């Protein structure tokens, strides 16, 4: 059963130095507030997992907490590069960043295998691509019926998955709706899970397109209104596209980034618009 905790308590209890952490949300419902709490608690040597690392991981990488990144597309959507990610990969600043790089289809299936407690998943992918040369988590299997050779990807089993959702009920059952991405798979693939939510309601009323995650597969729920900002929570907020655009210049410069982090995250204040 999920415990209702503060964000600070939940992060301290569930996420530890050296953990493999997945923070999912495909543009929508990205758990920024939880990432900022990780930065404030200086939880480090993390292996981070995420299909689209996005600005959220640019911040964690720039803060020097990340040892390795498992991902499939690392850009600022619609804007350009992730400069902290590039600086870490290209120049090792503030520390070197090891990569395990996949395609989206591969990453999605790695989560599916994890949620299904299978050691691998099969897909028609990676053919002709150089990607398999740089990772040991892509291989091949032959179909025992047709002989066809297909790609195999290793299952993902994060120590902790963190997601943001619109609602939880008093028992800790969670509902998210709108683009629901790969969140259910990421939660079920993990050993532990934390869900930040916009609000607590007495009873969840199933919405069109709603995905319910029952309390008994969640470890902690923390109420963090606006916890997805600058991404959005359908029904609660809109995407702060201006922030994403402004991130390009904030993040391009090491000092500007450090100052931003100090002022907006480490000082404990919410992310400025």
């Amino acid at each position, binding site marked *: 059963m999920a415990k209702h905790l503060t964000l600070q308590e939940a992060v301290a209890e569930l996420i530890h130095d050296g953990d493999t952490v997945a923070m999912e949300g495909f543009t929508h419902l990205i758990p920024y507030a939880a990432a900022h709490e990780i930065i404030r608690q200086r939880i480090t040597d993390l292996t981070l997992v995420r299909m689209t690392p996005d600005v959220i991981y640019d911040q964690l990488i720039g803060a020097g907490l990340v040892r390795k990144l498992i991902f499939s597309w690392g850009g600022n959507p619609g804007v350009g590069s992730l400069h902290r990610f590039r600086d870490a990969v290209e120049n090792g600043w503030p520390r070197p960043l090891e990569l395990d790089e996949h395609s989206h289809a591969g990453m999605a299936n790695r989560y599916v295998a994890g949620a299904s407690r299978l050691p691998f998943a099969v*897909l028609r992918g990676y053919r002709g691509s150089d990607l398999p040369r740089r990772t040991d988590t892509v291989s091949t299997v032959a179909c025992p019926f047709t002989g066809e050779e297909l790609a195999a990807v290793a299952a993902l089993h994060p120590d902790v998955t963190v997601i943001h959702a619109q609602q939880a009920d008093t028992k800790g059952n969670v509902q998210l709706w709108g683009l629901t991405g790969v969140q259910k798979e990421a939660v079920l693939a993990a050993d532990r899970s934390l869900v930040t939510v916009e609000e607590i309601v007495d009873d969840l009323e199933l919405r069109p397109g709603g995905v319910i995650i029952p309390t008994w597969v969640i470890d902690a729920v923390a109420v963090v209104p606006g916890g997805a900002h600058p991404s959005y929570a359908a029904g609660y907020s809109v995407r702060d596209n201006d922030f994403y655009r402004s991130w390009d210049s904030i993040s391009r410069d090491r000092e500007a980034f450090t100052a931003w982090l100090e002022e907006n995250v480490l000082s404990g204040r919410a992310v400025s618009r």
Partner: protein
Amino acid sequence: MTDSVEFSRDELMEVNAARALAGARSCFVGIGLPSTAANLARATVNPELVLIYESGTIGSKPNRLPLSIGDGELAETADAVVSVPEVFNYWLQGGRIDVGFLGAAQVDRYANINTTVVDRGPGRSEARLPGAGGAPEIAANCGEVLMVLRHSTRNFVKKIDFVTTLGHGSGPGDRAELGLPGAGPVAVITDLGILRPDDSTAELFLTEVHPGVTVEQVRAATGWELKVADEVVTTEPPTSQELTALRALKAAGRSTAV
């Protein structure tokens, strides 16, 4: 029908990219230029075109250009929203999509794509690009692939440093040998013209230039010795209807970050 209105090179690219979607039933849409083209196609040549985004939206009908692949507008206007694993497994890999529309950082003469790393020479680290995203499987599994990117020797290179996404490999037969279900890239639409793979060699050659562009300009912007069709056609200039629709989409997109 042509009109005597002003337009930019980018608009030529975007309008021609949209026209390439006439007749398609469904399109798997990458963000950026492909998304502009696909939404313009819905506003002009193909109102019934079904747009599929990798965020899980099927049949999105946005009224403004999404900045990201997961903008709320895409979900709110969709016929159906499915999980990310489902969109890749049942819909893309399931062979349900006619056209995959991709951008690219680097392309070679066989329309192979690099969006991963660029070699910066000895003693320097590789330059890091965003990575594969959905492209390898989009290019493999869609019925055919359209590409749209700006024309320069930085983008159109003799040899790509990393094959993120296979186009035609090293020539005809490579896709079939690898068992890739789709036909692969059939057109690369740029701000100068349109390249298409040669039927017998699979090598990209110049078949169309945009109004006001010369073959020499295209050759100069291509990093390999570009082959050229016997008769290079000049594309129709954008109609005022196309330009109006394109500019309206972009204006709406710019005003959404409220």
